């Protein structure tokens, strides 16, 4: 038919140049961008490892780092979806503060009887968080009030309620130990510990440095299982692509990527194992990260959120219920803010009026450092998590170095700006 020759002119220009190297180069560029962030995190960690003379990677400090920053990462998971869908949520810090106060009141002050059990209180708090998200999301989704305004109002409202609940400037506590375990607890060693080097006690009754190395075996086993599962599923996905005749990434790249990630993970697991094992909050975080990666990458609802953020009108005309989807994104954010609030309260052991104050900015910064676009439609869960860790490591490292809090903020601001400028520059180039 005559169609055969008609289209030729269009591609004619491009065909002058061989397409293959361009595809390979663009694959490398995307990969670099994806791994660039992780490399940046590693570089920052190595930097602080030196400047803090090895304190950063000490098992105690690693546990601290996780416990101090987990709430940022938990909330960043929700914030990622909010930002991808083209919105923003400024209220998360206040909601977290309010939920912390609510939890403390329920467990310590109000006579609720069996209802003041930490688990029951936590579940109620998560539900309340979801309800707050729904209340804010309702105005944003169904009345098209800009999320910036609705959540700015929410930020004021819930900080106010938080302070009122705690009766002015006072704090409420101490919280029960069972609750504090959420932040400061470690997983029990059900397998039993393995003593590598028995402790040697000197004359003063203190253990000599370098001796007394016992490993938390449950931690080691969990780490090994996780790494093996990661490698196995990676390999299986690869095989399946090849079997169906699709190109997968270059094998060397795959192997290097898997080895580096596994080595890093195992090193961290080993460090935890030499201390008290994996922190509970790290497990919670890990499960949530895996869940959100799955939802955004593989589930239809994740795909719909990206489509809505990319072009809301087109998504709507493709049969996506954008209003309901927006509402759900904010409900999710509310639940995760509540969880963040519980984690903060559990770490402090009490509820304070300033809990979570300003943390919305850290959370939003984490998401943007992780490569999300302020216009919506673009952003990855892993990016937000790494962004959160970059912020956390910088906080932690600079604190150990004794950098003044004021200057810490300056550095964090510069890193945020730098990361986004780098990203924009990259996009314009590509």
């Amino acid at each position: 038919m005559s169609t055969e020759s008609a289209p030729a002119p269009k591609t004619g220009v491009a065909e002058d140049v061989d397409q293959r190297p361009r595809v390979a180069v663009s694959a490398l560029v995307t990969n670099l961008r994806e791994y660039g962030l992780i490399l940046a995190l590693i570089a920052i960690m190595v930097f602080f490892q030196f400047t803090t003379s090895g304190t950063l990677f000490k098992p105690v400090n690693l546990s601290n780092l996780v416990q101090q920053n987990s709430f940022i990462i938990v909330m960043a998971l929700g914030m990622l979806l909010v930002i991808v869908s083209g919105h923003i949520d400024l209220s998360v810090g206040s909601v977290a503060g309010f939920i912390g106060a609510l939890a403390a009141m329920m467990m310590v002050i109000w006579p609720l009887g069996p209802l003041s059990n930490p688990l029951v209180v936590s579940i109620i708090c998560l539900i309340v968080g979801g309800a707050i998200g729904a209340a804010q999301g309702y105005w944003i989704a169904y009345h098209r009030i800009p999320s910036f305004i609705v959540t700015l109002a929410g930020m004021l409202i819930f900080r106010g309620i938080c302070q009122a609940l705690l009766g002015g400037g006072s704090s409420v506590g101490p919280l029960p130990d069972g609750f504090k375990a959420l932040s400061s607890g470690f997983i029990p060693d059900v397998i039993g510990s393995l003593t590598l080097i028995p402790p040697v006690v000197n004359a003063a009754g203190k253990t000599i440095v370098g001796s007394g190395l016992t490993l938390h075996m449950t931690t080691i086993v969990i780490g090994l299982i996780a790494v093996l599962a990661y490698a196995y599923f990676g390999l299986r996905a690869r095989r399946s692509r090849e079997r169906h005749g699709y190109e997968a990434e270059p094998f060397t790249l795959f192997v290097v990527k898997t080895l580096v990630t596994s080595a890093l993970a195992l090193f961290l697991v080993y460090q935890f194992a030499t201390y008290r094992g994996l922190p509970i909050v790290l497990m919670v975080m890990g499960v949530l990260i895996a869940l959100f990666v799955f939802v955004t990458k593989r589930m239809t609802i994740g795909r719909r959120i990206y489509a809505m953020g990319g072009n809301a009108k087109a998504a709507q005309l493709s049969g996506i219920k954008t209003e309901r989807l927006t509402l759900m994104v904010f409900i999710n954010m509310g639940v995760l803010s509540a969880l963040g609030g519980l984690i903060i309260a559990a770490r402090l052991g009490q509820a304070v009026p300033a809990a979570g104050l300003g943390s919305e900015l850290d959370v939003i910064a984490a998401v943007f450092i992780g490569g999300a676009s302020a216009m919506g439609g673009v952003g990855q869960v892993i990016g937000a998590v790494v962004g959160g860790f970059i912020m956390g490591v910088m906080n932690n490292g600079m604190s150990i170095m004794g950098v003044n809090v004021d200057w810490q903020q300056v550095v964090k601001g510069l890193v945020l700006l730098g990361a986004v400028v780098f990203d924009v520059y990259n996009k314009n180039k590509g």
Partner: protein
Amino acid sequence: MFADLGGAQFLMTSTILEMRDITKTFPGVKALSNVNLRVEEGEIHAVVGENGAGKSTLMKVLSGVYASGTYDGAIVYRGEECHFKGIHDSEHKGIVIIHQELALVPMLSIAENIFLGNEHARYGVIDWNANETRTSALLKKVGLKEDPKTLITNIGVGKQQLVEIAKALSKEVKLLILDEPTASLSERDSQALLDLLLEFKRQGITSILISHKLNEVNRVADKVTIIRDGRTIETLTKQDISEDRIITSMVGRSLDDRYPPREPKIGEVVLQVKNWSVYHPIHAERQVIKGIDINVRKGEVVGIAGLMGAGRTEFAMSLFGRSYGRRISGEVLLKGKPIDVSSVSKAVEQGIAYVTEDRKTYGLNLIDHIKHNITLANLGGVSRHSVIDDLRELAVANEYKAKTNIRSSSVYQMTGNLSGGNQQKVVLSKWLFANPEVLILDEPTRGIDVGAKYEIYTIIARLASEGKAIIVISSEMPELLGITDRIYVMNEGRIVGEMAASDASQEKIMRAIVRGEGKAS
């Protein structure tokens, strides 16, 4: 022979612009290679070519968007070689380009837009009276009867185009470049715009017209330069200009038939709409659609003709999940049974698909790749328990890429980087994968080139032969006459005529519209 002719013309007219051996390379792609363009003072010079041929790139070189030094070759304008570093340099010399996508600020007035960045001001304080007086004079020149204080958002696209031209005039334009100026204008507005170009010609303003619409080129152009694959093919003078000749040069072959042949096999009525009425979403008392009855049969292609603003898009969108309007009433029957189309997802479930006229705003997620766009309307088709099967999705995307002949390096190319024709094929693929029984295509070939149009027509013909019921809304009457079996004529929210395509003609359609206008008033 050419040198001869040039020498002779040099005595009568002078060359205002000569672009010599322009070569522009992007990483990996040679967009222009040794393009030559010679424009005489006071003529209307059309530049035609398929999408991606390099017309826009050439104009960006000319206007300094691509700064001097980023390309090879020379630009000689009014006898001197120019090295434009930016759009400001070229505007300073009187070269003004009006882009396809208008660059007006919607919430500012006509006067504010015309003098934006160029206000009559003293010490930074704007003299509004001077601005408005000048604006009134400019508006008179372009034949626009509007108050200079009117906000841009309150006037139609056709008038906005005139404001852009008035803005160009305010800059003492000597060479006016119009990039697809009539792409979004109605027939009547287009004619007015072309008349304006002819008027400018009498006043001595030179114009370069970039257009897909060959009848327009035919009507106003003194010369036509055809570009293909980033190369100049030929320049035709007035007496040699003919649509067939241009098409042959554009696509590098003769397009003896612009519409694919097809043998309609028409079956039972699939979709029937009864007494459909819709009110305006904001002006609640204004009825936009006034009791429409139409039907489409299996394997039939039905056209809806009409002028811009006749309510065709509004009708289609209100039908498609109430995506337009309020107080919608009427009945929709699919194969004789009433169906619920009150939301987009319900309409899609019932087997209705609507391919929008504005693919960039309503059709595509431009920051995502082809694969994700194709499956968006039918994610259920590539997932199980809400979990997407990546490989199945990839297979589906590749299948439709092949079916609709989308030209891209892979299905992982961003739709925002595709040409108009390929974008349209992605939108079509999305809806084909949703497997509808009724497909409503709104201006399916707007702004895409001849070759891609033919491919779209071929897809439509194939779908009809597969037994789909198809509605095509189009402002291009030859297109409707060429590809449909039956045509409804719509005007001011009503169906004012219905005819078999075999005995329809442009005159008949126009007559139905004019008669309908009388009835409506």
